């Protein structure tokens, strides 16, 4: 029982990070119908900037802010300089360009920072509190929950309660009509990329201290889990991304704990196959269910 409780909290904590990362993928998918395979590399770049800023100033939080800002800037740059010029008549074009970006970003990071794992400290203790003799959560886990919860809440408010959110949704669903109504569709697309990349950077900041360290490819495995989470939830659905992230996190935790850590990635792939067979659009994909 104790192990179950521990694994559950551990899974939710990991899952929260996947949820944030999946949310970033969903944001871009909804805005541009592109699966941004470069999301992981962009997030790692932001974490490297944070690493440099933290080393130079001694402040984790300055580094944290730098990572988010880097995310915003990278998102705008990638959309304005690269993706805007990709021919979107075939969905594969965007994917190939994104994969190319991965190679470029990882290569540049390797040139500047080297290809060793750099140790990154967590801002809070990662030792779990004990509740009645059971190790439950660490301060760092709490930080992860608060950060991801705040992002989900802020994005929900943005999309459902603000004029900008309404413009962004309209621009994504019906670009021509939105333009006729005075919405700058290109601007909304850029904003979508900026927000998504910032959320991706946050996920990178949260996950890197819990893994081996900072490396140009540090987010590759996280990307696979988060991509699975997004597809399981339905690429169109922000709620689906969050639920999918938590499901993937729990699955990884349970399989690692009860079976064997090395088979955990296979369990994720199995989940992906089962969901794609049973509900190809994802668990939350039905547009009828999405009362906007």
């Amino acid at each position: 029982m104790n192990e179950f409780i521990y694994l559950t909290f551990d899974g939710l904590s990991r899952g929260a990070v996947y949820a944030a990362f999946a949310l970033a993928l969903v944001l871009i998918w909804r805005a541009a119908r592109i699966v941004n395979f470069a999301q992981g590399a962009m997030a790692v770049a932001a974490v490297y900037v944070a690493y440099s800023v933290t080393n130079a100033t001694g402040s984790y939080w300055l580094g944290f802010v730098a990572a988010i800002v880097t995310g915003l800037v990278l998102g705008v740059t990638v959309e304005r300089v690269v993706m805007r010029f990709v021919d979107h008549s075939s969905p594969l074009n965007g994917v190939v360009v994104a994969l190319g970006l991965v190679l470029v970003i990882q290569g540049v990071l390797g040139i500047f920072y080297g290809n060793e794992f750099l140790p990154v400290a967590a801002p809070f203790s990662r030792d779990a509190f004990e509740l009645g003799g059971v190790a439950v959560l660490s301060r760092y886990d709490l930080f992860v929950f608060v950060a991801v919860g705040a992002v989900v809440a802020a994005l929900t408010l943005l999309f459902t309660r603000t004029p900008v959110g309404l413009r962004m949704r309209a621009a994504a669903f019906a670009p021509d009509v939105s333009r006729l109504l005075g919405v700058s569709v290109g601007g909304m697309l850029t904003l979508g990329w900026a927000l998504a990349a910032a959320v991706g950077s946050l996920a990178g900041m949260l996950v890197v201290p819990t893994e081996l360290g900072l490396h140009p490819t540090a987010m590759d495995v996280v990307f696979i889990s988060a991509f699975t989470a997004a597809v399981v939830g339905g690429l169109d659905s922000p709620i689906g991304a969050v639920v999918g992230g938590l499901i993937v996190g729990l699955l990884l935790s349970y399989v690692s704990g009860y079976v064997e850590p090395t088979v955990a990635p296979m369990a994720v792939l199995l989940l992906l196959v089962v969901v794609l067979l049973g509900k190809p659009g994802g668990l939350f994909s039905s547009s009828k269910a999405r009362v906007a």
Partner: protein
Amino acid sequence: MSSALLEVEGLTAGYGAAPVLHDVNLTVQPGEIVAVLGANGAGKTTLLRTLSGLVRSTGGKVVFDGVDLRGTRVEQMVRRGIGHVPEGRGVVTELTVDENLRLGGLWRKDRAEAKKALDEVYELFPPLAQRRTFAGHQLSGGERQMLALGRALVGRPRLLLLDEPSLGLAPKVTGQIMALLRDLRERTGLAVLLVEQNVRSALSIADEGVVLALGRVVVRNKAATLRDDADLRHAYLGF
């Protein structure tokens, strides 16, 4: 001529190499309803899409209220006073009725003014007021047409480009929409460029008719004259 709200001169436009519109001339006076008629593929929808900038013109001139619209971006048209209700209605089906309507007024800086325009549209279309929180896909065809029209009216345009408002609607609903357009014209001086397959109902409210055939204007005349000219009706309008 100089008092015209919209003046189109020698307009040529199309998709890719082959032009769809050839040397189109027409004018719309303030408060005038002009019907654009013609067979499928005559270029009616392309004409409206070119006027609002969705299709780029390759030649000619479009002057709205004394301002040359060449180079004006689509997003700016609503600010100039041009509302375009596209073919197939263009309701954003994923958004609610209220969100669709608010979208029509988001370009306004003056929030109070936008709110006032929104309330007026709800007054004009009571069925929409009862369905504020319904998603677009839950509405009937007639309600969607009301929503698309209402959304354009939230922008308080001086010229409305209306593409096939009767498409797929019951004759009674079409009649209501035509009556509403006439009423709006009387009360607010709204000018309408109306593209219609339903020639009878279009000519019943229009002041002028323009007949397009293969992208060229073949007839421009008073609507009453078009209604009464049997040869013309047979030749171009099929009734």
